[in-house]
């Protein structure tokens, strides 16, 4: 694969601000094809804003964002790219008036024009793909537990077989066992379907078990982007605290 093709997302010189409040200043980010990249950073450091900017949910102040090698300020390119992207929002963002199956079918009907029995079969397969039983398909989103709605949300994000998947805090609010299962699910899907995953997370377990690299957002920039063992050696104070903090806190408690 050529060097260019290797970068699925390329953000250059991104500056975003709300009023006087500057969130990012001259931020660069590169995401490689086939990797699981975690975006970490303190609360309010602008992780979600960065992802929203990449997704085109608002117009950044300056900077260029390229996805699949296409410049995202071009509206017609944007539409074509959107179909190759799946997003799981933090709280699922399932359509509350539709059943689980209809939620998964929605993008299939809208963009791939699937119909009838075949549509139903595809939707049920997607629901099975994220490890849910067929019985769930008929339920309403409000009847689901937190972990289940996250899975349904992934099923919907995967409906059009995207090449790029965004996950916003996929394991927040899950119990450790559920979170570990979810991590494995993401890893399996990534390896098998050839996905590239960008996830916002605070979960050290996910970082160690499935993430190939992590990008640290701090001081309005990506201060470091590297594999987890490399990050552990970093001198940046926030990163040091992030990785050392847990061990240190546990030790202090034992004293």
């Amino acid at each position, binding site marked *: 694969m050529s060097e260019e093709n290797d970068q699925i997302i390329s953000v250059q010189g991104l500056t975003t601000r709300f009023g006087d409040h500057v969130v990012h200043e001259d931020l660069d980010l590169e995401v490689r094809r086939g990797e699981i990249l975690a975006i970490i950073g303190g609360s309010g450091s602008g992780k979600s804003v960065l992802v929203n900017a990449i997704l085109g949910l608002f117009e950044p102040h300056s900077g260029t964002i390229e996805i699949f090698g296409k410049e995202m300020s071009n509206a017609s390119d944007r539409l*074509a790219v959107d*179909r190759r992207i799946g997003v799981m929002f933090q709280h699922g963002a399932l359509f*509350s*008036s539709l059943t689980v*199956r209809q939620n998964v079918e929605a993008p*299939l009907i809208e*963009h*791939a*024009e*699937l*119909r009838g029995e*075949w549509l139903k*079969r*595809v939707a*049920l*397969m*997607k*629901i*099975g*793909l994220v490890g849910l*039983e*067929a*019985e769930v*398909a*008929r339920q*309403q*989103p*409000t009847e689901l537990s937190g972990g289940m709605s996250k899975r349904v949300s992934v099923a919907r994000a*995967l409906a*059009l*077989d995207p090449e790029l998947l965004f996950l916003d805090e996929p394991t927040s609010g899950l119990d450790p066992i559920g979170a570990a299962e979810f991590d494995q699910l993401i890893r*399996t899907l990534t*390896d*098998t*379907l*050839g996905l590239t995953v960008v996830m916002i997370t605070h979960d050290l377990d996910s970082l160690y078990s499935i993430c190939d690299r992590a990008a640290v957002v701090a001081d309005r920039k990506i201060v470091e982007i590297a594999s987890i063992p490399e990050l552990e050696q970093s001198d940046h104070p926030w990163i040091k605290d992030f990785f050392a903090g847990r061990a240190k806190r546990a030790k202090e408690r034992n004293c």
Partner: protein
Amino acid sequence: MKLGSRPEIFVREEQENATLVVSGDWITQNLAELPPTVSYGSSDHPEIDCSELGRIDSVGALAILTLVHRAAKIEGLPENLARLFELVDAATQGEDASEAARHPLHVRLGKVVYRAGQSIKTSARFLGKLEVSLVRSIANPSRIRPVALASSIQKAGLESLPLIAIMTFFIGAVVALIGSDLLEQLGAAELVVELVGISVLREFGVLIPAILLAGRSTSTFAAQIGAMRMNQETEAMQVMGIDLFDALVLPRFLSLLITMPLLSVIAMIAGLAGGLVASWGIMGVSPILFIERLESAVEIRHFWVGIAKVPVLAAAIAITGCRHGLAVKGDVEQLGSRVTVAVVQALFAIIFLDAAFAVLFNVFGI
């Protein structure tokens, strides 16, 4: 978007060995419908040749698995393809359990009756709690929350005032206009004052504000309280030991009870003013004559009849709004349907109560 080549599957016969050849791009965009099935009758274990296969995704894999059931077990596929087949095959599920069968008529009827009974029960419970809260607040007025009450009075009362005044003004004018035509033919043009006076004081000055508030305040109350329920704010209040009725229902209930009589008086004045302007403009009845005749010919009891109805209507509006707001649980759609039901019920209650009052006053000759 480039669609690539069409997904195709065909049989290549070679010396009694059938080989299924899969070619093209088997991706979602190309698979709005399943490609036509192929028959490979002669051989039960056909070879599959995926060397001409272009791109493939999970829907493509599902399509191949649907057409060739054994594809997952076929040896010698490239590793990533085998893994994809395996994953998709494991995920494929049969039909979901058939849709719940429709119940026979008597069961459905029974459910409707049961639900109506439940709804009466919750209404009764709501009224009981409201009464307790009301009596407690009368005994101990410091329980009333002044800020909530004042804000509710402003939103429900003051802000609807201009609209109510304008509406009743025009209705008073229309009554005068239509009446004048008929009364002039009968040679009793001055009776228009009685017509306007009695209809505005007894009915329009009461009904128009009530209908407007039923649309405006019932929906606001139901939506506000319903949204708080969805957001678990009501639960938070409960665990803090804050009485929901004291905090949410009573201020809204009292605010309508206080403002609606005032709104009605203003509506009556506006309605009479509308009648006055119309009869002056059309029939030349001077304002002084109109007011004099109003004083002498229209008894004050008509005003009291009208104003006596107001508290009952105000209570009906506030109660339907708050009760449906508190009944919301779960999703946004239910919030919407609850608000609709609240407004419809409030409007129905107003018209029904007004009719009941009309019959009652008629019987007692008031």
